[in-house]
């Protein structure tokens, strides 16, 4: 059988391509002779102690590699074996590249951590608070495994009404980081989800590697909903933990952070309600007391009562005045009586007693005989009574007293 070179190469290419063993291969080794073509494709050799193989990684795949490959790096390649017909060279077509080995991974981890920290992705000021009572909790983790059960058990024990939204993703291996990032963005878009738990159970650094990928870090940083990371065990730290708003040591702990005990919240609310009630009762009671005190004080200032007091003072004053007046009047009356006695002693009565009389005409005293005519009716007041007298004759004699005196003198 004679074949052309091309036919042979094509035949071998096809037989290689049809061998299931040569597809989905994971190949580990050290990069050497690394070349970045202008087209964006990568060409390099992967070697170990005794062997080497040519490798190609096309632009589309190369874009998904989140670190910079360079000569000497230990890596794992995922891809298939093929043949380049033009040169007859057999090579490995890499679709994904990962750092390989603890040392490699650790170096990468540190490098990435520093770069993202510098960029400000871990800034504590960006950390969002976890709501006390989220409407719902989003979970980005594997559909299988204990994590989702642990979270559900703890969440429902603390608040049996808490709705959980699971976004099932691959948590390790090829494509895991992309799925995790997508899951975060998906749950972030649901208004019912108010906190997101991203995590997986424990495993090797390799198993947890997806959570160190930049695409996951960026998805968490871009997520508007608060994110709690729960990757592996307490001692495991991933880049996702640094970017997350809160890091939980385990998935169960994450559920505890996301769900506050319903009973505790209820107590807080009832306690506050009681305080409000008491404060209102006290405030009203205190005012009532103040009001009644004031009422009492005002009552004491009642104008009626005050009037009574005034009235009694007035009465008292009047009594004193009356008493004073009485005394005064008594004195005066006494004095008048004395004067009367004295007057009486020196008044006409005494004179009348001595024999004199008062002559009145029509009630008026008659000062002398000069105005009296015969026929006049006169009243003569004497001691002991009044005489009605008719004048029979008037003898105008000037010297009655004189003659009398003369006579008495004679």
């Amino acid at each position, binding site marked *: 059988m004679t074949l052309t070179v091309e036919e042979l190469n094509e035949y071998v290419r096809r037989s290689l391509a049809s061998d299931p063993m040569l597809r989905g291969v994971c190949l580990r080794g050290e990069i050497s002779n690394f070349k970045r073509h202008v087209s964006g494709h990568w060409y390099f050799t992967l070697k170990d102690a005794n062997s080497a193989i040519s490798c190609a990684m096309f632009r589309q795949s190369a874009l998904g590699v989140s670190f910079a490959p360079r000569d000497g790096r230990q890596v794992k390649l995922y891809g298939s074996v093929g043949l380049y017909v033009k040169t007859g060279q057999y090579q490995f077509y890499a679709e994904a590249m990962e750092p390989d080995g603890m040392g490699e991974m650790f170096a990468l981890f540190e490098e990435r951590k520093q770069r993202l920290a510098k960029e400000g992705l871990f800034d504590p000021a960006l950390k969002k*608070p976890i*709501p*006390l*009572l989220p*409407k*719902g909790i*989003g979970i980005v983790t594997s*559909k*299988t495994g204990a994590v*989702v*059960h642990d979270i*559900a*058990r703890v969440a*429902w*024990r603390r*608040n*049996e*009404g*808490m*709705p*959980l*939204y*699971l*976004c*099932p993703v691959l948590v390790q291996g090829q494509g895991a980081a992309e799925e995790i990032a*997508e*899951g975060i963005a*998906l*749950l972030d*878009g*649901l208004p019912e989800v108010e906190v997101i738990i991203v995590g997986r159970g424990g495993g090797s650094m390799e198993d947890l590697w997806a959570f160190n990928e930049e695409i996951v870090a960026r998805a968490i940083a871009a997520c508007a909903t608060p994110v709690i990371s729960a990757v592996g065990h307490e001692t495991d730290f991933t880049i996702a933990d640094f970017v997350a708003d809160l890091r939980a040591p385990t998935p169960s702990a994450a559920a505890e952070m996301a769900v506050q005990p*319903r009973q505790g*919240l*209820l107590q*807080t*609310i*009832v306690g*506050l*309600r009681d*305080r*409000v*009630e008491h*404060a*209102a009762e*006290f*405030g*009203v009671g*205190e*005012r009532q007391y103040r009001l009644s005190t004031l009422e009492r004080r005002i009552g004491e200032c009642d104008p009626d009562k005050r009037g009574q007091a005034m009235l009694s003072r007035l009465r008292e004053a009047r009594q004193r005045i009356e008493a004073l007046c009485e005394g005064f009047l008594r004195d005066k009356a006494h004095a008048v009586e004395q004067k009367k006695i004295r007057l009486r002693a020196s008044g006409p009565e005494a004179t009348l007693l001595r024999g004199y009389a008062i002559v009145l005409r029509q009630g008026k005293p008659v000062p002398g005989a000069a105005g009296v005519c015969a026929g006049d009716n006169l009243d003569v007041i004497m001691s002991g009574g009044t005489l009605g007298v008719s004048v029979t004759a008037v003898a105008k004699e000037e010297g009655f007293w004189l003659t009398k005196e003369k006579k008495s003198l004679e």
Partner: protein
Amino acid sequence: MADKGKKELGMSFEQRLEKLEALAQNMEQGTSSLADLLKDYEEGMLLSQSLEKELEQARARMLEVKSGKAGKPSIKPSDVVEQGSLLDEWKAEE
């Protein structure tokens, strides 16, 4: 009041809880007027009622979210965790 009620509905659980705390503190200081006291009391009762109601409202369920066509998420009850069995599980624990 109706307006205020609506505004309070727009507030988050934390904000309302904080507001209730502030009301209680303010009322306990005893410096507010009687009118304010009664207003605060009324508001406090409404707030605590809405908070309690919100606490009661949620219903336990596990839903599965996947990205569907045109980037719209599809949400369906999850077969991962059978809610009943899990609820029974933790109830049995207690």
